[in-house]
């Protein structure tokens, strides 16, 4: 019943230039070069359809100012289906370049506008498909984007993926979290929702021992999830489990990213960007220690394996047995996981890399069960 349907990267031409590999449910690129250093990527599928997507783009960040060079990294953790995370992977970087071209530079506003327009356009798609495919209204995605440019790292986050910086210290490395997360199980996210919806006593409901927005979803901000943004989508024929009993006028979820800007110092060794599937098994410090103490080649896959070993331990089984479990039922053991490690060099690695921009996309249809 498991149909392999391999389509790696965004196209064959691209994957010839930047070969990426697949091993069972794992997709990876063990080591590559971006404008400011090396990087490593790995993903593993647990859902019957892979809902995570990721990308790395390195080179010019505008269409009209060749001096604005940098690296863009995106981790998109979809839910309810793969459509929203795929939409983000197709659209957010071109939008970022478009807005960056207007002011001929990267800024917090440029990144936020790229998020807003990606969400707006996805909701347009939902509107278009509503008559034939109403379930698109319940598809959404977290969106974590990092931009490294001009000695700064911008981390923009909508949802609960996470970016962690590894900063070297006497004899070791310290984890510095760069992303702000939006999950109802964080006090800060709950306070934000309660203050935005003071007259709604059921804005947050505890269900299955976890806080959920309106009792249905853990993330408090996202791209997509049209059914929680516009009441026109919160009606039949949407599945009953997504339909809210009462009408709403104000969007319940927002797509606004929380943006942090950090000036890089020579002590800053690397950044790990990963979906929550990794962080539910590894702490920030555990993850940066692994990266600091291991070879760069294949570091993303090493982090993935460390997380899966923890998952196996929690489920009281051997790691070797966990690796044999098929997508779908596998979701009971761990989530889809995406991890990207970006090593930092204070200066661009080599000027000739500017001539050949890098573009790698991960997570496009891997396995699908029918």
């Amino acid at each position, binding site marked *: 019943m498991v149909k392999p349907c391999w389509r790696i990267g965004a196209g064959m031409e691209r994957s010839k230039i930047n070969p990426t590999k697949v091993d069972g449910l794992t997709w990876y690129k063990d080591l590559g070069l971006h404008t400011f250093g090396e990087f490593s990527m790995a993903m593993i599928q647990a859902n019957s359809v892979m809902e995570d997507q990721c990308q790395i783009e390195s080179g010019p960040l505008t269409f009209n100012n060749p001096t604005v060079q940098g690296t863009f990294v995106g981790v998109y953790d979809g839910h309810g289906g793969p459509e929203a995370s795929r939409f983000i992977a197709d659209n957010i970087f071109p939008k970022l370049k478009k807005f960056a071209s207007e002011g001929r530079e990267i800024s917090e506003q440029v990144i936020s506008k790229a998020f807003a327009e990606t969400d707006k356009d996805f909701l347009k798609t939902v509107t278009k498909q509503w008559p034939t495919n109403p379930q698109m209204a319940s598809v959404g995605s977290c969106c974590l984007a990092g931009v490294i440019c001009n000695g700064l790292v911008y981390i923009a986050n909508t949802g609960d993926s996470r970016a962690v910086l590894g900063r070297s210290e006497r004899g070791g490395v310290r984890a510095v979290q760069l992303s702000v997360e939006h999950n109802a199980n964080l006090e800060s996210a709950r306070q934000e929702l309660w203050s935005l919806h003071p007259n709604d006593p059921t804005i947050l409901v505890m269900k299955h021992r976890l806080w959920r927005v309106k009792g249905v979803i853990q993330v408090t901000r996202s791209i997509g999830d049209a059914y929680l943004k516009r009441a026109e989508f919160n009606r039949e024929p949407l599945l009953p489990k997504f339909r809210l009993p009462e009408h709403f006028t104000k969007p319940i979820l927002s797509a606004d990213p929380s943006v942090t800007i950090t000036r890089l110092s020579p002590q800053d060794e690397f950044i790990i960007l990963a979906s929550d599937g990794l962080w539910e098994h590894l702490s920030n410090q555990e993850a940066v220690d692994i990266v600091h103490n291991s070879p760069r080649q294949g570091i993303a896959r090493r982090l993935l394996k460390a997380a899966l070993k923890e998952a196996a331990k929690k489920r*009281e089984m051997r790691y070797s047995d966990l690796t044999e479990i098929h997508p779908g039922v596998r979701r009971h053991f761990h989530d889809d996981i995406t991890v990207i490690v970006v090593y930092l060099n204070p200066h661009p690695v080599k000027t000739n890399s500017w001539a050949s921009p890098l573009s790698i996309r991960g997570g496009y249809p891997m396995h699908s069960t029918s």
Partner: protein
Amino acid sequence: MAFVRSLLGAKKILSRSTGAGSAAPKGFLAVYVGESQKKRYLVPVSYLNQPSFQALLSKSEEEFGFDHPMGGLTIPCPEDTFINVTSRLQ
């Protein structure tokens, strides 16, 4: 760790053990079964491919999502149902 033979008596496919939190032997995983009190069983990993066992897991998804409260897979059905389903699996 006390192994018991399956109802069919053919193979040691089902076993109960008290060693909560300990790793299962190769090829097996822990399952916590019961409505209020949970009993720990060890079942072959191959059960995960069986539709009838997956149906039990769907029940637990309805109740817990994917966050199994005992750590190991937690199936909130009556023990009889669990034994009934698993005794039919080879």
